[in-house]
């Protein structure tokens, strides 16, 4: 069977599975399925959090970016896992004890202020919109390859699918659908990785395999070979990287802190039965995420070596276009691989490097999806990876669209702007908001301001600069008042957003280390935004009254587990 048919079958089957589970779980909840267990068990919640969390950016784009960036790609690996330590140690147990639905709810109540709630809602919407823009690109990449259409059509098809899926999935039972999605995506990610690792090094585990010696009998370590090839071809040595340490530091910090401030991740910790389970849930989520995240650098290193070997040939002299492997011509149709005219006419061999010899362009976002084809694995593996990519994009987009639509319809309209609207109108507003979010996402999916993982990184910067300080101070600094928190959030988010917009959209020519503040790129600027947020909050507190006594008492009471209310269903 050809790849296209197989992809239709595998993606179709997984879709049927998700919808089946959603229907089953809904039926279950009417017979008090959840309440009997007092919420979702921590291991299942950990898995659902992992699926919610691992988006198209993690699944499709991250390994590709690492393969381009080499050591510099570590920012994504450490950044998107280290945040769970902050979540489990500093946030989740307290927010669970507090026991409200959303992050704006916590901020609104803790800072006893409607303004604080509104600022938090606006930040949540901003973060989720940025995040979803990255997702649409990822979905588009998957569909454009497997339906053999160009990337714009791919984005539009993906967009329609995600919108209808969310309307279907906007119900209870989403947790168990996400458990299934985690299983599909983890399986789809690790199976091809094991195959390519076996091929390349004879090792079974990707995690140890990419440090092993090559199976070609040369006795050379894989990473040594890759370092050598990279420098020969004008790239930075793979294990060294070329970003400045301060930028690596700032991006890693922004991603970690942003993780801990993401509304759609935090919301998951309200669903566990007990405060102690919120801690446990964070641990399990990280275990499940680590399955993918420790595999990713192996895929990156191995596929990079494979790409260099297939485009440039084993002797690194270049390969003629007519002898090109099928994955190159397949991906060329999507526009994500480009081959120079002279090479296509057969006048010169194809060559992929980082200098003037190069006549091939490879988009980083294809690396994971193409890795089974590049390694000549069977077609069913290729189809499986497509299903995994769809699962990753769907689970995250659904979660994000729910956050956006509930923020707009519930937090913003019903509770702030127009308290008199009916439930029907509220529902309509939710659907319109979700539709609007999908459209904006599609626009940026077609005209991406960076690779999927980079766009997503902006969302983390915004979360780091807005929510994280407000929540941390809300828990650990009893006296922090509403003026301080609001001023901090506004300064943090406005600064971070302006910096990103200036360098990515207004003056992209200046988007380089010479013009960046302290050499920090727009991806890492959330770290500076977060510091501004903290400083402004403290200074403002100095010149205004402490939080009232009843709020300080409330903060005392979220600091120990006893007396936590029942779990909240999502």
């Amino acid at each position, binding site marked *: 069977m050809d790849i296209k048919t197989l992809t239709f079958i595998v993606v179709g089957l997984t879709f049927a599975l998700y919808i089946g589970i959603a229907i089953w779980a809904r039926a279950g909840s009417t017979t008090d399925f959840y309440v009997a267990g007092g919420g979702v068990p921590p291991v299942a919640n950990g898995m659902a959090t992992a699926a919610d969390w691992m988006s198209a950016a993690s699944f499709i784009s991250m390994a590709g970016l*690492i393969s381009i960036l080499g050591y510099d790609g570590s920012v994504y690996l450490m950044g998107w896992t280290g945040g769970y330590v902050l979540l489990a140690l500093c946030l989740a147990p307290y927010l669970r004890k507090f026991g409200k639905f959303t992050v704006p709810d916590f901020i609104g109540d803790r800072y006893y202020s409607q303004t604080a709630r509104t600022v938090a809602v606006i930040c949540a919407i901003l973060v989720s919109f940025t995040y979803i823009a990255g997702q649409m690109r990822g979905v588009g990449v998957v569909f454009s390859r497997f339906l053999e259409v160009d990337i714009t059509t791919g984005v539009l098809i993906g967009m329609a699918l995600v919108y209808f899926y969310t309307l279907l999935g906007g119900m209870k039972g989403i947790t168990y659908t996400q458990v299934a999605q985690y299983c599909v995506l983890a399986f789809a990610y690790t199976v091809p990785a094991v195959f390519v690792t076996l091929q390349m090094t004879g090792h079974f585990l990707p995690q140890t395999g990419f440090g092993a010696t090559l199976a070609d009998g040369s006795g050379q370590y894989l990473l040594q070979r890759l370092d050598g090839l990279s420098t020969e071809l004008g790239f930075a040595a793979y294990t060294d990287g070329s970003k400045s340490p301060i930028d690596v530091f700032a991006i890693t910090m922004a991603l970690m802190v942003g993780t801990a401030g993401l509304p759609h991740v935090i919301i998951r910790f309200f669903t566990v039965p007990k405060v102690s389970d919120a801690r446990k849930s964070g641990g399990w989520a990280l275990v499940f995420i680590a399955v993918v995240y420790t595999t990713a650098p192996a895929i990156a290193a191995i596929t990079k070596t494979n790409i260099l070997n297939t485009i440039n040939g084993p002797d690194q002299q270049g390969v003629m276009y007519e002898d090109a492997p099928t994955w190159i011509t397949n991906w060329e149709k999507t526009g994500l691989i480009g081959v120079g005219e002279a090479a296509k006419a057969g006048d010169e061999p194809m060559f992929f490097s980082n200098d003037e010899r190069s006549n091939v362009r490879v988009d980083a976002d294809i690396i994971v999806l193409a890795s089974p084809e590049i390694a000549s694995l069977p077609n069913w593996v290729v189809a499986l990876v497509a299903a995994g990519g769809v699962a990753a994009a769907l689970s995250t987009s659904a979660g994000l669209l729910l956050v956006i639509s509930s923020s707009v319809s519930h937090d913003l309209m019903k509770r702030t702007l127009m308290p008199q609207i009916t439930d029907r109108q509220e529902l309509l507003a939710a659907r319109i908001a979700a539709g609007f979010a999908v459209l904006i996402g599609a626009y940026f999916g077609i005209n991406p301001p960076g690779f999927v993982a980079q766009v997503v990184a902006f969302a983390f910067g915004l979360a780091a600069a807005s929510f994280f300080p407000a929540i941390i101070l809300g828990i650990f600094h009893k006296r922090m008042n509403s003026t301080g928190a609001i001023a901090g959030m506004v300064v943090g988010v406005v600064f971070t957003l302006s910096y990103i917009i200036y360098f990515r959209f207004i003056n992209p020519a200046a988007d380089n280390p010479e013009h960046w503040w302290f050499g920090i790129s727009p991806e890492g600027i959330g770290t500076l935004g977060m510091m501004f947020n903290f400083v402004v909050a403290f200074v403002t507190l100095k010149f205004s009254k402490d939080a009232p006594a009843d709020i300080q008492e409330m903060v005392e009471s979220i600091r*120990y587990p006893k007396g936590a209310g029942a779990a909240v269903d999502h």
Partner: protein
Amino acid sequence: MAFESDQHAKDYWKENLSLMLKLLAVWFIVSFGFGIILVDVLNQITFFGFKLGFWFAQQGAIYTFIILIFIYMSKMNKLDKKYKVDEE
């Protein structure tokens, strides 16, 4: 008041903070320390075919994060029991 005395409440919070800060110190040293600041120094050492600094940045830090969360979880469960503020 869930605690037996104000002193208990203070001690519980103090022990919690000290545990949290110790674990966060490890979190910082392994990722930002070994993986970023000291990466060039550690890269002089080879570890199962990896340069050590590179390994910490792409593998080791993640394993450490998992261990940290589970240590916190089990120690906090004991602390909750000690001060009788656990959920039965």
